[in-house]
Structure formats: C-alpha cells, structure tokens
C-alpha cells in the first residue's frame, strides 16, 4: 500500500470520501447518522495526518520525500512541512464541517454545501502533498473551482456574484502564472518532481542570472502566490466574501488563501535562487502588510475587519518568504490559520465584548512614562534576544528585523496595558507578559527553524535592494505602531482626517475594481435572500 500511495494522499482521498452527498436535515435520524459518519471520516483524516507527521519525523526527510508512484503523475511528496500542513488543514476542516452542520441547519442546500466543503478540503490536502508539478496544478485548479462553488452558495446575492467574478479573474491569473511556472520548471529541471526540482535548484550556483528561466519561473511562482494570497491590489474580492456563509470565510481565510504561501514553501529552493522574485515578494508583501493593517484599523464591521487583517497577515507571511525565513513563514501560516478560523467562527461573539465594555477605540493618549517604560522593556527584550541567539544584523538581517517587529508588539502591549488607576501594577504585569511573549516567540521561531530545516531552503543572503526595502517597511511598522498611541491627537489634525477618510475606503481599490467588473443593474430594489425553506 505504501508503495502505491503515501498517507498524505490517503488524507486527500478520505476528505473526498467525506464529501458524500448528504440528504435530509438535522431533524431526521438519517441525517444525524450521516453527520456522524462524516465527522468520523474527518476525524480519521486528522488522525492519519498526525500519523503522517509521526512518520515524517521518524524517517529522514530527504529519503522520505517521494513515495507514491514516483516518476508518474501520481507521485506524492510527504515531508515534515506537508505533514504539519496536512494536520492544520484537516483539523480546521473538521471543525468547520462540524460547525456547518448546526449553523446551516434549515438551508435547502446544506447537504451540497457540506459535500463541496469536503471536496475543497480534499483539494487543499492534495495540494499540500502533491509530489509533482502537474498534480500540484490539478490541485490548484480544483481548489479554485470548488472554492468558487462555496463562495456562490447564494447566487442570488448580487454582491457575491460581483465578488466571485473578481475572485475568478484573480484565480485565472494565478492559474496562468502557475502553469507557466510549471512548464518552465519541467523544461529546465528536466523533471516534474517537486523534490527533484528543488534539489536541482539548490545545486545551482547562488548568483544565477536574474532574468534567466529559473528566475522567471520563480517570478511566476511568486505571482501565483500573490494572486492566491489576495495581496494588494488584487485583494478586493476577499473583503466581499462576507456575503458567503461564515464557515466559507473561515475555511477560505484559514486554508485557502495561504495556499499561495504553501506554494512558495514547497518551491523554496527555486525561490531563493532568484533575487528578483524575492524582491517582488518583499515589495508586494510589505506593501500589503502595511496597507492591510492600516485599513483594518478603520473598518467597522467585524468580518471586513478580519478580511483586511488577512491581507496584512498574508503580506507579512510573503515578506517572510521574500526574506528567505521559510521556517517562520510556515509557523505564520499554521498559527494564522488557526487564529483566523476561530476569529470568523466566533465573529458573533463581538457583541459579548461590547456588552462587557471591552471594545477598543476610545483610548486616551498614553502617558509619556508608559511609553518610556515600554521602550525600555522592548529594548531589554531585543538585547536579550540578540545575546541568546547570537544573531547579528550583518549576518541575519531578516531574523533581527522580525525580532524588531516582535519588540514593537511587546512595547505596544506594555503601553496599551498601562492605563487606569493601578497603571504601575498593570505596567509591571504587562512587562512580565512581554517577557513571556518574547520567550514564546523566540523559542517557537527557533523550534520551527530547526524542525523545518530539511523541508525548506535555508535563509539566503539578502540583496541590498531587498534589505533597503525591508528597512523601509520596518520603519513604517514602527511609525504605525506609534501612530496608534497618538490617535486622540491625530483626530484633530486635518492631514490625518483626510488620511483617515481615504484609509477607511481602502484607498478606493474595491470601488475601482467594481467599476471594471461592473454588473448590469438588477431589476428590482434590494437583495432578496430568502433561500431557507
């Protein structure tokens, strides 16, 4: 059996199996029975994914790289990276399927929805463990198609039709980019096997031509990733997906948009070879991270806010890829998936936060003392980190840079916590929390780097242009962080008022793209969304 199919491929098959057509509704015992079967199958998928990881850890990663029908179209590559991603996708998939059983109860098309949901999961798991570029391409097409079906669950809603049209356009772009990349890689590497392509790429001399075929395939991969990850300025479909049921958003944000990142991780050796592709990722990722996090601050509905947050997080992840820290990028993908799936599924709970006066956005400017204290804590953390890790800016600019981002976060935590009557105690507690935060952050980074050492390419030296642009992005991060403390002050400045208006509109990207892909106006006023019953 093992010679035929890897356990990763089995997970994909299992999810396909879980997508059996379900009939009836929650009241009937047949439905409940089918639901139990589906959840049990999902649980098996999670179990088998864990088993895959166990195997991948016990076997030498390189030797384990290509079981399945090696050399044919049905080859699978399972290593630590794909095993971890398999677990993540299957786990989130199981949660989302379970959630949808009660959540969509009463919808006429609930059975079909669950089938397509499971099929999408089959696509994503196939994508994660496909061994050659053709299978990868098939999985990529399949994910886009089934996601499209999920998004259009209410085809009578005009806003979703528009969003789906944009999404289709962006998906086609990513498919073309991936197709070109696949053909080029197959031609120049002489093999379609991903592990072999990576091996060939890593054996190349470091400074290859930036405009050669390797470089162009890397650029195509980068573009495919950028299109899939809803990066600026192709993100506008993502913010409009809120017109599909919540579980679709959860799956999309947690398991589908990051497929772009997974693609880069799987071709990390190809990517590190091309300075241009890496620079492209740094620019687009950096801009999207800045754009997403700024626009996110001004959004007033929870799902749209989360969508912009995804744009920013994916941008940050691509920035990590562009800087060659693929281990950190893997951690980011997994952690973000879990976080964002939860955030969407729990989005109704924001009212509980409001009922408990827990909403933000009306804070006074912090005292100068707490800013100084926060700065001191962050600096200490940073110095401690450089001392322990022995990293230096000259040798490991990316690691140092992301360490700085972490310290900005820690400083933000201290500054925002040190308010109220007992602010001294609060500041001390927050400082303690920051130290803990720093410890968790740095140990996770170290663990990931070691854990995925064999699965992804090692960090490559940074080109000057990349380092320069990264420095600019870091400076902007620092600026945005401190701007958030000065909000009450900004509110009264004309420049920032103007800036706020443009930012809250997402700099009009959605509207401009709507003008391009406009639909003919509907006959009657209002969206009629009665599909229940």
């Amino acid at each position, binding site marked *: 059996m093992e010679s035929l199919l890897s356990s990763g491929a089995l997970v994909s098959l299992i999810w396909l199996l879980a997508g059996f057509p379900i009939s009836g509704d929650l009241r009937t015992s047949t439905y409940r029975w089918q639901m139990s079967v589906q959840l049990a199958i999902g649980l098996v998928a999670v179990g088998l994914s864990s088993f895959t990881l166990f195997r991948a850890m016990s076997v030498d990663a390189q030797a384990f790289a290509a079981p399945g029908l090696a050399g044919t179209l049905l080859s699978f590559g399972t290593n630590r990276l794909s095993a971890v991603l398999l677990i993540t996708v299957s786990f989130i998939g199981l949660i989302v399927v379970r959630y949808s059983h*009660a959540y969509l*109860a009463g919808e006429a098309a609930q059975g079909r929805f669950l089938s397509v949901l499971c099929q999408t999961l089959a696509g994503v798991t196939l994508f994660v463990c496909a061994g050659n570029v053709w299978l990868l391409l098939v999985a990529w097409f399949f994910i886009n198609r089934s996601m499209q079906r999920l998004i259009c669950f209410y085809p009578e809603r005009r806003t979703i039709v528009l969003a789906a049209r944009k999404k289709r356009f962006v998906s086609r772009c990513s498919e073309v980019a991936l197709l070109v990349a696949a053909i080029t890689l197959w031609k120049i590497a002489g093999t379609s096997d991903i592990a072999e392509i990576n091996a060939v790429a890593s054996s190349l001399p470091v400074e290859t031509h930036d405009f050669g075929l390797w470089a162009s395939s890397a650029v195509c991969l980068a573009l495919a990733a950028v299109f899939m990850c809803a990066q600026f300025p192709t993100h506008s479909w993502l913010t409009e997906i809120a017109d599909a049921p919540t579980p679709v958003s959860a799956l999309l944000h947690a398991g589908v948009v990051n497929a772009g990142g997974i693609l880069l991780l799987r071709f990390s050796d190809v990517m590190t070879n091309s300075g241009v592709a890496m620079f492209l990722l740094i620019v687009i990722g950096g801009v999207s991270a800045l754009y997403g996090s700024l626009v996110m601050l001004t959004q007033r509905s929870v799902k749209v806010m989360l969508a912009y947050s995804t744009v920013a997080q994916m941008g940050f992840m691509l920035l990590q890829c562009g800087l060659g820290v693929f281990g950190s990028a893997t951690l980011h993908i997994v952690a973000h998936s879990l976080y964002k799936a939860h955030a969407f599924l729990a989005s*109704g709970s*924001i009212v509980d936060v409001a009922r408990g006066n827990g909403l933000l956005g009306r804070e006074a400017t912090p005292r100068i003392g707490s800013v100084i204290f926060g700065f001191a804590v962050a600096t200490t953390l940073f110095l401690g980190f450089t001392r322990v890790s022995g990293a230096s800016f000259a040798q490991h600019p990316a690691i140092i840079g992301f360490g700085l981002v972490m310290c900005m976060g820690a400083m933000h935590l201290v500054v925002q916590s040190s*308010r109220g009557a007992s602010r001294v105690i*609060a500041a001390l507690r927050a400082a303690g929390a920051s130290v803990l*935060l720093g410890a968790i952050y740095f140990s996770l980074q170290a663990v990931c780097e070691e854990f995925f050492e064999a699965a992804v390419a090692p960090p490559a030296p940074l080109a000057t242009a990349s380092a320069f642009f990264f420095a600019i992005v870091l400076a902007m991060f620092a600026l945005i962080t401190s701007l*958030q403390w000065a909000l009450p002050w900004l509110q009264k400045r004309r420049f920032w008022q103007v800036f706020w208006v443009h930012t809250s509109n997402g700099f009009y990207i959605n509207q*401009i793209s709507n003008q391009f892909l406009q639909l003919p106006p509907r006959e009657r006023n209002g969206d009629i969304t009665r599909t*229940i019953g």
Partner: protein
Amino acid sequence: MSSEKSSQVIKFPGARKNKPVVQQAVQRSLRRVAPVWPLDGFVAVNPFLGIADEGFSVAARRVSLACEARMYMTPEFYVSALDRQRVKPEDVEEAIQIVGDCEGVSAEHLGAELANGAATEVRALPTVASVARELANTDWPSHVVERISHWASGYFDVGQAVWPSPFRELSPFRAWLAEMRIDCSDVVLGINEAQKILAELPEDAAEACEWCLNRLSIPEDVVELYLHRLQMTIGGWVAYARFKSWQQELAGSEPELIVDMLAIRLSWELLILRGGVAQGIELAWRRSITGCNADSLLAQPVSRAERALEIAQTAYEFAWQRELVSQLQASPVSSPATRPDVQAIFCIDVRSEVLRRALEQVSETTETLGFAGFFGLPIEYIPLADQQGSAHCPVLLTPAVRVRETVHGQTEELSNRLLRRVKLARQLKRGWRSFKNSAVSSFTFVESFGLTYALKLAAHSLRLSRPEPNPRFRGLPPRFASDLGPQVRAVDGTSESVGFTRQVDFAENMLAGMSLKSNFARIVMLTGHASSSTNNAHASGLDCGACGGQSGEASARLAAAILNDQQVRAALISRGYCIPEDTFFLAALHNTTTDAVELFDIDELPVTHRSDLQGLRANLDQAGALARTERSAALMLDPERATLSEMLSRANDWSQVRPEWGLAGCAGFVAAPRSMTCKLDLKGRCFLHSYDHTQDVEFRTLELIMTAPMIVASWISLQYYASTVDNRVYGSGNKVLHNVVGGSVGVFEGQGGDLRVGLPLQSVDNGDGPVHEPLRLSVFLAAPITAINRVLEKHQHVRDLVDNGWLHLFAIYDEGKVIVRYRGELQWDAFSPASVQNSQMHQH
C-alpha cells in the same frame, strides 16, 4: 456612464421658499421610520410605529410605495391555510363582514381570488437614484446605500474600529459633509460635479433639506411619501438614528437626527441629479415625479387582490381567536384556593406560560401569576466596577433610579480590594485585546499565540467553553461569581440606590399591578428570566424585553429584597397591604433556553422555610422537565432527548443558530385572574398578565396595563409579524451571513448594504417555512368595557392601535363565559356565539 457637460443640464427655477405645507410634510415624515435598538439591548420594536396612525390596509399601501414592503403573507400561504382547514369558511365569512366593502369577494371564492391576485404588486415611488439606474444602466440605488452605509457605520460605530471617525463629535450631516468633501468615491463613481454641489450645500441639515427639495421639484402632495421613501432606502441607519434620538423624543422634542439623515439622503439625490451621471436625467426625473400624485396613490380604491389578502389575514386571525375563545368559555373556573404553598410570579413573556402550566400541573398547591418581568422597578443597573449601566426597564420608560451591582458577603475593605482587582484585570484584558487587534502587534500575536487557538477551536466545538466569557463575570475571580448581586441600599448613603419611600412606592405598585392584595403564600417566588446562548449576536433579543433586553435577575432580586424588608412591610400596612410575617419573597431566574430555574439569596430564607424550599426545588425540576419535553418538537429534538444537559449543551454550542425560539408563536395577551386560564393549554402563545378588576378601584392598574405591557406585547407581536411577512425589509435576513457592525450597533447581511433591523430569518423560520404564525395580537381584558373605553379615550396612541386594526381587543365577562369584541369607535360586539359553537363542534 455619460459625463455630460453641465452647460447642457437643464436648470430648474431657482430657490423658492418652502410653503408651510411642505414643512409640515417634512415634519410628518420624520417619525415614519421606527427605531431599532442596538445588539447589546436588542428589544422588540413595532416596525410600523411611524405609520400606526393609519389603518392597517392604508399603511400596507404606504409601505409598498415607500419600500415595496409586504404587510401580508404571500397569497399561496393563505390558500394553503384554507386548504388545510386551518382557516374555516365561517372565519372567512366573519372576516368579510368585519373588513366590509369587499366588492363581491365571497367566502367560497377567496382561494381563487387570492390565486389570481398574486401578480399585482405596487412599485415604489421613483427616486432620482432609481431613475438614473434606468437611464444610465448603473446601479445607483445600491451605490447610494453603500456610500451612506459606509459613512454611517463609521459615524455610529461604538468601538469596532480601533481608529474611529474623527468627525463623530459633529452632527451627522456636518460629519457627512466633512467626509464627503474629502472622499474620492465621487470621482470613481463618475459624479463629476459632486464637489461643486457639496461646496454649495448649506451646513445646516434643515436648510440643506430645503435646499435640495427646492431643486428636486417634488409635487407638494408627494413630498411626505417621497421623503418616507428616501428614508426607507437607508431604513436601517435611519432607524438607528431614531434610536439615538429616542430619549429626547420621550421628553417630547423633535427627532433631530432624522433631519440630518434626511438631508444626507436628499443631498445624494441632488448629487445624482446634478452631478452629471446621465444624460437627460433632469428631464427624466421631472417626468417621473410629476406623474405621481400622493392622494391617488394612497387613496385609490384598494384592489380586489389587496382586499382578498386583508380578508384572508383577518380570517386567519379569527380562526386562532375562535379556538382561544372556545377554550376560555369551556374552561372550568377553578375554585378560589385556600392559602397556596407557593406563589410563583413570572414575567408576562409567552415563554413563561409553558413553565407556569407545568409548575401548576406538578403541584396543586402552587399558584402562578404574571407580571412584567422588571417588576415595576425602572432601574439603571450598573455592573460591578463600571461607571455606567444599562436601563433594566421597558424602553417606554426612563430609569428612575440607579442600582449598583456588588459582591455580597464582603467587608467594605475586602470589596474595595476586590474592585481594584477586577478593574486591573479588565485593564490588562483591554491591553491584551489591543495587542491582539492592532496593526503590527497582531503579527507578533499570531506568531506567538496563534497555535493556542487549536485548543480553543477544539474546546468550543466540544461545547466546553465559549469564545468570550459571560460579560458579567469579566475580571472577577470565579469563586465570587455567585456572590454578585444588586446593592439594595447604598453603603455610604448616596442617592444611587433606592430610597426608603421609593421602596415603599415600588412595593405598593408591584403588588397592585399584579393584583396581589391578600392570601400571600409562605413563599412568593419573583421570577425574572434570561436566555443563554453562545456566539449569538442577537442574544439580548432572547433576554427579558421588559428589562430592556437584559437579564431579569437584578430586578427580581431587588424586588424580593424590598418586599422582604420589615420596615417596608410595616409601611405597606398603612397602604392596605398586609403581608403575613411568615411570607418570604424569593428571587429566581427562569432560563428560557434550558427551562431551569435558579434561586437567589436563599441563605436569607428563614430556617422555618427550608422544607418549603426543598419542595419548591423538586417541583421546579419536574416542571422544567415537562416544559422541555413540550418545547422539544419545535427545537427538532426527540422528546426523550430534551434533557437539561442537552439544552445546556445546545446553549453552549457556538454554531447553534436557533438556541431557542424566543417569543415566536406569540398571538394573544390575556389580562385576567389566573383562575380563568389555569386549566388551559395555551401552547406558549399568550402573554399572561394577572389582573383582577374587582381590586382595581379607579382602574389605574387597567390603564397601566393597557398603556405599558399591552403596548409592549403588541410591539413584540408586530415585530415577529413583520419579520415573518417580509424579512427583507423588516427582518435582519440570514444569520449565516450576519456581519456585526460597529461592535454592537447591528448587523449587515454580508459585507455591506443597509443596516438590518428586526429578527433574523432563523428566529422565525425553521427551514420548512415560518415557525411564527403571523397574527396581529389578540388582547383579552377581563374588565368592564366602560373602563376600557375610558382608557382608550384618554390615550390616543392606544386607541390608534386598536381602531386602526393593529391589534384585536376583547373584553371578558363572567369569568370567561361572555366575550365581546371591540369594533372600533368605542363600539363593542358580541363574539358571534354561533360560530363559537360551530368551532366547538369541530373540536369534538
């Protein structure tokens, strides 16, 4: 999109002073849209509040002109009800008599008439946006809604955006102007002249309205309808603005915020008209608006199809009334009890009826009463360590006293220390939330703590935890959670808690209100109610509406504390209420999701009452089980699966969109002694208010019932009615698409569009069709008609409701044997006895 040069745009005659007729029309239009309460206290509102001064059928015509809303179910619905014999021919005949002027629609042909009339629909009045849509092939109405909604969600946001609107200190119109003068959307949308028009607009909202109206050349008699139409295009946000100005309106002032909203929407009309978006728009607009004539639109003879719907709806209601009336008349009157062991007082909420009936069934010696769940205490309840609280009283009232929450059983020093601790915990939590949700720091958060969400996902899915802790217990160490309760008397004697004379007044009103003057039981249980659900944006809509969408716990505990006070009791004697010494008032909370009843402050119960308490507990457990079994069918559960643990797990399920059915099914309101109804199975469909008119000397209690609980009940019933008949306009749509706006302001259905009002589809529909039967409320008052008439004469808004057909009114005589129907104009008819007998015969 055409971008015609402005020189070619036809100019209308310049400014003319608006005539008083127009100004009055503007004033009238300001109250047409009903308010909507935000999600942290989502109480029911009559969505037809602004049009209740008109008859139901005229209003139906008005809303179809204003927003193409329906006020009846679809013809197929009634045809099916006729086919199923849910509505019988005699109901139709009676309905034809009552509705009158039927142009030959007869009982036997009603079904055919309904089927024929299905296609006739009234189109809404044109707006400049809708004319532009036809002309320019661009969806201007949606663009306008989208843009206004974008502005409004930022302006009214209460804390979703970390970076809030810098203009929220300004009035709505000024804030909108400030934003629009910066916003570049007009360029993207191709409104070339936008900035010029905006620069000319007056800064004052009322002046801007006049400015725009002058340039839109609306025929005078259409102005009001047109403005109503405009408001309904952004109806959700207008409703929210109406909520914001509700408090001032209670005090009698004008709804100023609505003028602002109107000015914004009118400005958009002007932007489209003069902005150069379509060639020939001015001419097209003039042609379509001058073709409209309000009188002919509103007063034109009602079509046969509309008549048929009205008859069908009325007959549908008669069918239900006939069942109830025959039940009431057939019900044996229970003998006046000797002293009951327990008197359990529940909220009038329809969900109480099920449990009350079960409790009486379990225990012969338990008497139940119905009273508004805030127990007549108009309080603002301030949660622990907070500065402000929320009103725990019906939205018709303003809170008269502020009551703080406190941790009981603590010395002052300890409780101060605890308070500091809670405040610190909350501050740290806020800091943490800020760390989690801010730009840049959120990257660090995800990388450091994102993995922990695997545990959360698993725990929530296994129903072991909820995404956000119960707001009440924020920052409080768990061991103190059960000690939280209202502080009856201020520790330091400040005016915040309830003064002594006030307490006595409250006690007297309470006892008078529930007609409880004598024969007090040993234990009187004051039962508030609350729901429990997880991850439910509309959770507060399931809580006690009489307590402003909050839990009824605080009110019940406060009421019990007041009535247990020896001094208060002593003072009550002089007012004619003699409470025996062995009577103890016990506060309780009915969890409407699980039907469990929690008892409070039992350590204050005298030792002599311990055995009574044990008995009560056993009875409550049994009654809860009975009630759960009864509710199981509607919840899609097998009766044997409807256990307490199953209900709890349902309440803790973060994916559950129907934790309970709330007040779905509500149809009747009965104010009578319980002895008249206690043998009846009312299926959880009636509001039950205890009322004994023989104790009500000057009919003050009757007046109170008709002006407060009855109004609130009709609001609830009309909210369910409207959300069922037209969820697009009056409901908040599909819950699986809900996207909470502004922290707790309301929901969008999807990523944008107008703010949605009313109930989600899932609250009235189970997938097969409506679970809520859309019936206007039938009110049964066991009181003399002279007294009822006097109240109607005194209160015009109550009379509007009954005279205009927004609810049905009946009076009960002779312990339920004689029932008369209100026919309008203070006239009453006997409830046709023949038809009742008929229906009784059908039952046997």
